[in-house]
């Protein structure tokens, strides 16, 4: 597979590993946050960790769309799915995420709610067309990657005059989240979670371009390397971060030049701007309320807005108090710090959102790195 296998070649991995070993300063730690779950996934799935120098520490960020959705929003979706006459559809990973009282969309479906998995917003449109008697709600989640497809669907629904299609919009914005992390008290005040550099988003950046990150590099004096999701991309980007750190630079560099340009995808950005507008504030799991960090539908699309069509009241979210997801999502803890990890909480019985998606840090630790998790915990305790 062209552009896939090329970036998974073990020979290059060995070369990059050797280079890193050569270049790291043995007297310091390199604490690098991979913002994206895609990076987390690649690191664990391909065993990248085994190839990194021991003083390069990867810190997992909040870049997993299903992980950061607050329970209140998920509870609203579950309640909507349970309504008579409603068919709720969403992407696969979302189905298993636990809401309050161990509910999930999958459980709601087992109990009779009409919940469907779709692979594309076009499937959601088709579902609405095929089921004129039902109210089809697309439960839209995700960052700047999944937002343009939702915008397309809304424009199609408008053009077709679909009366039974709405979107429950939960699209969120990456730059807002990164700013929030960098401004977080843990980051600002506590040495423990000091971050030395960022792996910047791959596919989000395809849409928004590399330019939005300039601000961070300048404002927070942190190096940023926009990194592809293949394991060689990740390793090369880590090497680029090591070099910036060693050289005291704090720039935005782009490793993923084959797909990311400074300006991004203009057509997609325009489509998003046409359909969505910023919310004043939106709650993120782990980050709390983050200003201007999410989209809602513009008034022109009010008829397609599930929040306006249905009376959706956010209930009192019942977070599992012992779940460390909030801390993990802002890089202030690692999965093995959580007392529930691997015991009560497993991918089979997830108690927090980080244990659900393959991009969630807890799931990645459990599925691909459980053995290493124990020493990692000790490391963390040191």
């Amino acid at each position, binding site marked *: 597979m062209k552009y896939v296998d090329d970036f998974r070649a073990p020979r290059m*991995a060995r070369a990059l590993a050797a280079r890193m070993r050569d270049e790291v300063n043995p007297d310091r730690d390199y604490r690098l946050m991979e913002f994206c779950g895609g990076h987390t996934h690649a690191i664990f799935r391909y065993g990248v960790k085994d190839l990194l120098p021991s003083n390069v520490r990867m810190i997992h960020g909040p870049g997993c769309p299903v992980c950061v959705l607050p329970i209140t929003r998920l509870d609203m979706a579950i309640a909507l799915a349970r309504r008579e006459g409603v068919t709720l559809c969403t*992407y*696969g*990973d979302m189905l298993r995420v636990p809401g309050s009282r161990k509910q999930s969309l999958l459980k709601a479906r087992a109990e009779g709610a009409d919940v469907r*998995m779709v*692979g594309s917003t076009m499937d959601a449109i088709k579902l609405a067309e095929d089921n004129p008697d039902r109210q089809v709600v697309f439960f839209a989640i995700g960052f700047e990657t999944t937002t343009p497809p939702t915008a397309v669907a809304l424009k199609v629904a408008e053009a077709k005059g679909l009366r039974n299609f709405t979107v429950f919009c939960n699209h969120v914005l990456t730059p807002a989240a990164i700013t929030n992390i960098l401004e977080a008290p843990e980051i600002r005040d506590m040495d423990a979670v000091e971050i030395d550099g960022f792996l910047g988003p791959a596919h989000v950046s395809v849409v928004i371009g590399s330019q939005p990150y300039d601000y961070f590099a300048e404002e927070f004096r942190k190096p940023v390397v926009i990194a592809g999701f293949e394991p060689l991309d990740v390793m090369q980007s880590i090497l680029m971060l090591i070099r910036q750190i060693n050289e005291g630079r704090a720039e935005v560099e782009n490793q993923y030049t084959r797909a990311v340009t400074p300006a991004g995808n203009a057509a997609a950005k325009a489509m998003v701007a046409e359909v969505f507008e910023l919310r004043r504030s939106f709650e993120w799991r782990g980050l709390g309320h983050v200003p201007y960090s999410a989209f809602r539908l513009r008034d022109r699309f009010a008829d397609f807005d599930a929040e306006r069509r249905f009376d959706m009241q956010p209930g009192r979210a019942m977070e599992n108090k012992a779940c460390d997801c909030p801390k993990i999502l802002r890089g202030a803890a690692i999965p093995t710090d959580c007392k529930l990890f691997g015991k009560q909480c497993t991918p089979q019985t997830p108690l927090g959102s980080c244990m659900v998606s393959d991009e969630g840090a807890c799931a990645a630790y459990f599925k691909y790195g459980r053995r290493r998790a124990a020493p990692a915990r000790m490391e963390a305790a040191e």
Partner: protein
Amino acid sequence: MKHASFENGVVEMSHGAGGRDMADLIQRLFVAAFGNDLLTGEEDQAILSFPAGRMAVSTDGFVVSPLFFPGGDIGSLAVNGTVNDVAMGGADPVALTCSFIIEEGLPLADLSRIVASMAGAARAAGVRIVTGDTKVVERGKGDGVFITTTGFGQVREGVSLSARNAQPGDKVLVSGTLGDHGVAVMGSREGFDFQTDIVSDCAALNGLAAAVLDAAPSTRLMRDPTRGGLAAVLNEIAEASGVGISIAEEALPIRPAVAGACEILGLDPLYVANEGKLVAIVPAAEAEAALSAMRAHPLGIDAAIVGEVGEDPDHFVEMETAFGGRRMVDWIAGEQLPRIC
């Protein structure tokens, strides 16, 4: 007496009600296709002579959707799946029973095709379908047709295979490419929305299994990696035997289109179902013999040694990644859903 047409009729409730419609269906469809001296359609049980010894018995329900997919259908699957479970026990499968739970409205033409396919698969595997049962459920209470087959066979003298038998040092063999069945079925399922030229590997493995046992009589155990794929089978073995298993990603035979489809869907081929492959755990001394025997068999030409058994108090399955790292290969959690993020 007029009969429902097998060309354009559909299954109705009366086909399962115990009256003439049912008797007709049994005679004109099932008995006609499976017919042998044991299956007359007149008795509620088959009587067959069985030599003294150990008998292997296995049962499986088949619920695949769609009913027809590239390389097979629920009928051939139901025959081969159970033949394979019997063969994995070190036995020579001799007979099957089958039970049909049919949803009202199933086109009789579809049912005919399925039954013909079962008959063909049974013939190919050298087993007889000796008795059966038909039930019809109301529309909306089934999914076309579910088939449960039960198979039995005589266990080879001196052979005793079990998931508990794996020992450190043993080699792990797979008989061919992984994930073909699952990808073929998903590709023909509405909503998955991709196409490949991959066809299901659905096949009867009794011949291949016999060849392995002939060549490597100390074989510890065999398993067909169906639901949950190779990952599920290896984890089951590790747990039952109290061992660890380590495989090498590079050694795994996987077709490019299977890899491509998994890449698109965000799935891992290790968890994708197979219906014509076997995993064998063989002592190192006989591993090469087993491998040669597999490769000499038409169903084993892509066979490979993919890993080995080790000691591990955690009973983990781990994989040397092609990239050069190591990772766990855990049980599948829940269903494998296409990954979007």
